């Protein structure tokens, strides 16, 4: 019974992942009459949207299945793939169900896409969400709070509920349980990676881009129960790796499977990072908006797109390697991704200093051939296993 339920659960998640028409969002709108607001990677505080009765919808590009017909006319060959597939989704009508889009300050490509969106879809709500790189509550915090208030006001002007403190407090609590549920799966994968293959975990994370949080949390919990009960999932001789660099444009599912088949247990990663951007629960104590801002400033995870105020670039990756018991690092970044690729040599320096082996390759969301990656990852996994036995 359990295993077929698990199969069904995963099949549903994969269906959501592959549905480029955003049918689930359309259904939600029909059911609730609420506003659906899209957001690009990497992070937006979904609690605000939730508190105003909106559905936050993660738009992570078109992935491996989308045929790019018009999107290429918007971008030169030396720009990453995600903006062109996102434009494609906009032009082919897939994103018509969205009442607006948030473009967070992830990089110059997403930043510029916000202006393109404004020109291309003049009737939609478009907001560039500038996030502070100054983490002082009095300085960056004040600015960020103002940003969030202005988004809330703009949404209310478009028909969302006005933002109220009690609703925001409740939404923070809901997303805290969501953070717990995600973290529980990451912990289980760290402890028993054979129970939680990353290609499955990934599909679940992606489902959270589309489903209301109230549906996503039980899904994550149920998956955990089912895999824990599944005795057929047994340990294999795989190399434990931490994968980094895939925080924005996502790799094709086939690539994640390839890495696993090549002998890697991915025991930590930065896929779909909006779910884990705030470490732990939001510390409470003040007005809910202040708490949310404080969590971003103080509990935001180190990342290529977050200024390393105190230096020590790469130390966080070394610490994560230790924490998850990884034996090596796989740098896995989208081609032409400035933040990831500019970050990489700094992180390499830190992990080499710590004596951690690594390998690196690039992908595009629509990469179809994995042979080279398979060989490279296989060799890497073998070399790790070899070293761990001598």
């Amino acid at each position: 019974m359990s295993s077929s339920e698990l199969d069904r659960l995963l099949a549903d998640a994969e269906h959501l992942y592959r549905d480029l028409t955003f049918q689930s969002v359309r259904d939600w709108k029909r059911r609730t009459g609420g506003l659906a607001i899209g957001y690009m990677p990497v992070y937006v505080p979904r609690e605000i949207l939730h508190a105003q009765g909106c559905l936050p919808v993660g738009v992570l590009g078109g992935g491996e299945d989308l045929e790019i017909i018009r999107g290429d006319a918007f971008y030169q060959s030396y720009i990453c793939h995600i903006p062109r597939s996102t434009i494609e989704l906009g032009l082919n009508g897939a994103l018509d169900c969205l009442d607006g889009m948030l473009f967070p300050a992830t990089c110059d490509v997403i930043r510029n896409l916000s202006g393109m969106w404004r020109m291309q879809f003049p009737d939609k709500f478009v907001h560039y969400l500038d996030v502070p790189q100054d983490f002082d509550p009095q300085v960056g915090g004040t600015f960020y709070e103002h940003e969030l208030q202005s988004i809330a006001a703009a949404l209310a002007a478009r028909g969302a509920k006005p933002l109220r403190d009690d609703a925001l407090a409740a939404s923070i609590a809901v997303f805290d349980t969501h953070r717990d549920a995600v973290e529980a799966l990451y912990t289980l994968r760290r402890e028993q990676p054979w129970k939680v293959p990353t290609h499955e975990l990934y599909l679940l994370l992606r489902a959270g881009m589309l489903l209301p949080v109230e549906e996503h949390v039980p899904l994550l919990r149920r998956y955990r129960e089912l895999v824990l009960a599944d005795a057929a999932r047994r340990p294999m001789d795989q190399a434990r790796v931490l994968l980094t660099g895939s925080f924005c444009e996502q790799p094709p599912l086939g690539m994640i499977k390839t890495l696993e088949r090549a002998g890697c247990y991915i025991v930590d990663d930065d896929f779909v990072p909006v779910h884990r951007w705030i470490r732990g629960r939001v510390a409470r104590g003040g007005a809910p908006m202040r708490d949310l801002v404080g969590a971003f400033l103080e509990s935001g995870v180190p990342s290529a797109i977050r200024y390393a105020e105190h230096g020590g670039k790469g130390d966080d990756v070394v610490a994560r390697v230790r924490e998850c018991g990884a034996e090596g690092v796989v740098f896995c970044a989208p081609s032409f991704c400035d933040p990831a690729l500019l970050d990489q040599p700094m992180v390499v320096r830190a992990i080499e200093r710590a004596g951690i082996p690594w390998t690196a390759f690039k992908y595009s969301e629509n990469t179809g051939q994995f042979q080279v990656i398979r060989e490279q990852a296989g060799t890497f996994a073998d070399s790790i296993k070899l070293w761990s036995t001598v």
Partner: protein
Amino acid sequence: MSNPATAQIHKDASQERQKRMIAEHFHRLAQAPDTGHKCAYTFVPGNLTELLRTFDVLPVLPEINALQSGMRGRSRDYIALAEKLGHSEDVCTYVKCDVGMLHSGNVGPTGERLPRPDLLLLSYTGCFTFMKWFEILAQEYECPVVMLHVPYQGDGRITDAMRRYVVDQLRRKVIPMLEKVSGKAYDEDLLRQHLARSAQAETDLVAVLEAAKHRPSPIDAYFGGVYYIGPIFTAFRGTQDAIEYYRELRAEVEERMRAGKGPVTPEGELEHEKYRVVVEGPPNWTSFRQFWQMFVDEGAVVVASTYTKVGGVYDNGFRHDPARPLETLAEYCMGCYTNLDLPTRVAMLSRYVQEYSADGFLINSVKSCNSFSAGQLMILREVEKRTGRPGGFIESDLVDPRYFSASNIKNRLESYFQMIEQKRSSGAGT
């Protein structure tokens, strides 16, 4: 063309002055370890030159070093070295050029060694890569770093919250750090004096750039323009030298305009202005002269460009305002070209095409720079739609010679100018 030999020998007084100013600046930098002068590495867009001057801190601008390395034929090796050190082939070549230069002795454009920084002043304006660049430099140098995060004009305007955010950072972070590094107290009156001088020079710069509205244009506002912006974009804003340079330059340009002369090019004066174009995007530096010559060969003059606005947009009326010293610095930073949203960039280009009576506009899309390049194909179509003038698109890079294909670019330019010609003969456009 006038006689190239004479043209090359003859240098305008302003050019001589600029050369001297730059030589002196780099000499001061080279001497800094002995004189005890403090140096801050910082960027062109959103530079705080007047503020640095208030503390007697000298700026070093890595982008300028990179572009100079490109012009002097050194960037190929520097980039190769950086790639060997693990920097990706996909990222901004300014960064790699700088990293390569640093690992090759850090010799500046005048052949003298650049001092190590006493401070990394990271002004994060208009480009995300700046932040990564300084994180990389922070690994190389044991020195303090201070960040000035400048919010983007996502809605095409500056809000009070944005201004306050920048001013707060200046007041609470940047100024205290400059006080610490320089050992000098902040003197706002001195800053006001520098800012007042900036405003004077800015007015003359605008007059120079707007001289291109005249037919024939006495200047080339892109290839020539990059020389004109030199002092004001770099170490000299707020100085008496800059005032004198721009006063002199303006007089020279106005004299050329009165005499009905065209711009001075590397080959001498352009006597017959055949095409007037607006250019978007930075130039290529490794084949700068060859690139310019392709325009000259066609009789094309660039009458306005956006690249000459990366270190500050002044032709919209903005001037540094000594009455509001920190607010004005904040507005300056937020107003730099690459900090403007795409609709504003489209509006600005369209305005240039119309106000400068251009036959069309060209985009030089550089591989390095997402800040400039992401969205340029849409800009192309939008500006064409709004102005009815033809747009052209060429691709190259800033300082990586591997991405400058002379024959491709020349072909594209030739076809582009033929297209303008055809439009003219069919009566469309101007």
